[in-house]
């Protein structure tokens, strides 16, 4: 009897020790409940004083009347606005170099060029941009494939969400070529590729006929373009001017490609063509354009997102890190709302729509049961310049806290006052 109670006591002690150890070993809490003052779900209506239930980094339930399990760790965010992390569908920042010198390099990947310690990623996290597709720049005809990353991690592997997503095709001619020559170069590449594939199929058929093994693989430098034709990759086609839009649509129709249009500022003129094509669109970072009407000599304001919104085009915003006013994704959405865009649509254009365009909307872009718990905690409304991102959660794990943002602290510190050296005499 006595020994038995001993054993029970020891076993309880052991269990407690193991549990304790487990709790310390796993920084990610299995069950979380976020009690938020306001939840902007994007998928539906906003929820006031609601709860987001998270298990293993995945959202289990959202709503006002969600029962919190006894073993869930509760995150109190009564004075916070919680919404899905912003998604950037197109950027060439954070790369060692955005463009190659060669015009046709479909085989290169931004995965090899992403610089994890670039301040771009740090700033993105601070601004609530939690998912981004990094694509090659707009200077090369066939610029290579993109990489979807989160701005968090010391290596590209740690940041990685999805490799080999999207292929950049730029219709802006590179130096020394005209638009005619540029398009011809593209057509020539495609006809050469078609020839190559026909040859390849012929060889395969010949080998089959003679019952010989066939182990020749598709040329690795051509593979991404073959995948583009097989719709395993989406073409991100950059249109520099409105005139390029019809070429992008021609390419899409000729080769039956999955296409996203990446637009230059001038492209709003082709809005009718774009609306008819029903293609997803990524707007240029310049949202308001002033133009002189040559007949009346008056300045006319063109609000690009409103032009596309009225035409029923689905679009995503992008940012330009070199322009102060266009550095923030939320500010892009706020600008559109200022000029009359529906708030819900503007918010979708920085969350759900870009997630759809880059093919991650099955797990990101809105707060819904089944999606990843990648959330941002804001101190106020996302479109208000006075609110800031207080915390960022990626798949149930808090990866950013403003209170612990060392660089921000340094920036916000009062400047050092230089003291004049005292006379020693």
């Amino acid at each position, binding site marked *: 009897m006595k020994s038995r109670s001993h054993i029970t006591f020891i076993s309880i002690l052991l269990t407690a020790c193991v549990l304790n150890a487990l709790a310390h070993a796993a920084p990610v809490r299995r069950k979380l409940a976020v009690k938020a003052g306001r939840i902007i779900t994007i998928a539906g209506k906003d929820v006031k004083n609601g709860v987001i239930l998270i298990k293993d980094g995945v959202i289990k339930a959202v709503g006002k009347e969600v029962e919190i399990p006894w073993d869930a760790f509760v995150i109190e965010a009564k004075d916070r606005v919680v919404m899905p992390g912003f998604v950037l569908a197109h950027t060439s920042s954070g790369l060692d170099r955005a463009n190659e010198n060669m015009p046709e390099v479909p085989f290169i990947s931004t995965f090899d060029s992403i610089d994890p310690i670039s301040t771009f990623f740090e700033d993105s996290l601070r601004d609530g941009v939690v998912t981004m597709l990094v694509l090659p720049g707009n200077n090369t005809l066939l610029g290579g494939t993109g990489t979807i990353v989160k701005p968090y991690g010391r290596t590209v592997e740690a940041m990685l969400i999805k490799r080999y997503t999207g292929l950049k095709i730029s219709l802006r001619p590179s130096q*020394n070529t*005209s*638009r*005619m020559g540029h398009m011809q170069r593209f*057509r020539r590449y495609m006809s050469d590729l078609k020839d190559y594939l026909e040859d390849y199929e012929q060889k395969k058929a010949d080998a089959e006929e003679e019952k010989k093994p066939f182990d020749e693989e598709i040329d690795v430098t051509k593979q991404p373009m073959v995948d583009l034709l097989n719709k395993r990759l989406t073409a991100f086609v950059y249109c520099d*001017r*409105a*005139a390029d839009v019809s070429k992008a649509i021609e390419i899409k129709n000729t080769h039956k490609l999955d296409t996203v249009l990446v637009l230059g500022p001038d492209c709003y003129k082709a809005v009718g063509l774009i609306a008819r094509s029903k293609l997803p669109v990524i707007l240029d970072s310049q949202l308001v354009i002033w133009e002189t009407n040559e007949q009346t000599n008056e300045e006319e304001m063109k609000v690009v997102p409103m032009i596309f919104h009225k035409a029923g085009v689905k679009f995503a915003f992008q940012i330009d890190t070199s322009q102060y006013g266009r550095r923030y994704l939320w500010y892009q959405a706020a600008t559109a709302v200022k000029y009359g865009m529906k708030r819900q649509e503007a918010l979708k254009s920085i969350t759900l729509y870009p997630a759809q365009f880059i093919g991650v909307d099955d797990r990101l872009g809105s707060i819904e049961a089944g999606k990843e718990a990648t959330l941002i905690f804001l101190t106020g409304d996302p479109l208000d310049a006075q609110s800031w991102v207080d915390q960022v959660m990626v798949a149930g794990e808090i990866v950013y806290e403003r209170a612990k943002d060392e660089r921000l602290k340094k920036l916000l510190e009062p400047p050092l006052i230089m003291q004049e050296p005292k006379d020693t005499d």
Partner: protein
Amino acid sequence: MKDIKGIVVFASLFLQVLSAGALGAEQVAIQGGTILPISGAAIENGIVLIENGKIAAIGRNVAVPMDVRSIDASDKFVMPGLIDVQSRLFVIESEFNEGRSIAPELNILDGLDPFIKEAPEVAAQGVTAVYITPAGRSLIGGSGAVLKLNGSNDVGRMLLKGDIAVKATIGVSANNQSSSLGRLAQYSSIREALLSTKIYMHQREKHAREMAEYNKKRAEYEKKKQVRPTEKVEKPKRPDRFRPNPTREVLAKVLSKEIPLQIEAHRVTDILNAIRLADEFGFTLILDKCTEGYLVADEIARSKADVVLGPVTVSFVETPRLEYRNHDVRNAAILSKRGIKLALGVSGRDGASSKFVALAASIAVANGMDKDLALRAVTLTLAEILGVADRIGSLDVGKDADIVILSGHPLDTLSRVEMVLIEGKTVFERKDKQ
């Protein structure tokens, strides 16, 4: 019940109004005035009936249906839309300078910006179509296209016909300096390209023959195998693949006379060299610019080449270039008197210059060209040279209703354009009528 009746009556009325509206939009009658059909003699007090954008009837006694849209053109002149055969409208400025090269596979349609602002300004001067070619900075620079100024922003909708002709250039210097050796080099480069195309065509034919032979042998082989599967029969060897070369394919079309070669040549030697090339290779030649053509009019007449002449006056040109050294305003008159098929172009410094088509024709007339021939040179003859005369160029039944209504004769510089129609649709109407 009463309500339903009311709805039915209302709906039928509504439908009637709708159909009448639709019909009205499709049928237009231009009545009165002097009609210049270009293809024939002028018709006084005539009627042009337009149906579905085409000319349905033309003449003095045309039965006009009741519910058509009527345009009163009494005391006015009615003629087919003008065409600029040497236009730079829609051309993106940066594409103006194409590198020196043999690149006939280029297509002007890839280098156009349909969103430019000048197009309505040009259409308002009665110009309904423009022919645009790649610039004359490359030796063989790609094919040109005819576009309508119908106000669309979609090149596909503006396009009347592409691949009109392949543009080439002899003797135009980039740096405005003449060099005999440089001109010879240009001429021989074009000749070399044409020669290697000849070889290419020969190889292509040879390959086609070999493939046909192989297919025959292969069929025999399959048959033998089927009949006696055990017997060892030697399998025929497939000839190597023939790789089509886009550059050569386009020039092959030129050599087989499917597309003309439009050679820009200004000076006598260059014009003669162009004719020499046409004689040697037997392609259809369109002589472009042809500045010193009047000095070798007989040779041009003998060659049967068509001429796209312009600028009529050097004041249309940006800077007095070397090529225009011996320019003469009587050029068009002298060439047309030799019976040469001649079109007049503006060849202006920028896109908006295309609006001066009527002025170019007037200046040619002022310097001795026949009035009718000058009008034809900016409409029907031009359309014939470009191979689009089945659609535009004259007022004939079945052609596109691209029509200009003017206050006076088109060659009178005081005449004002009152209205411009393209395929029956009004693209310009003068607002400030007294």
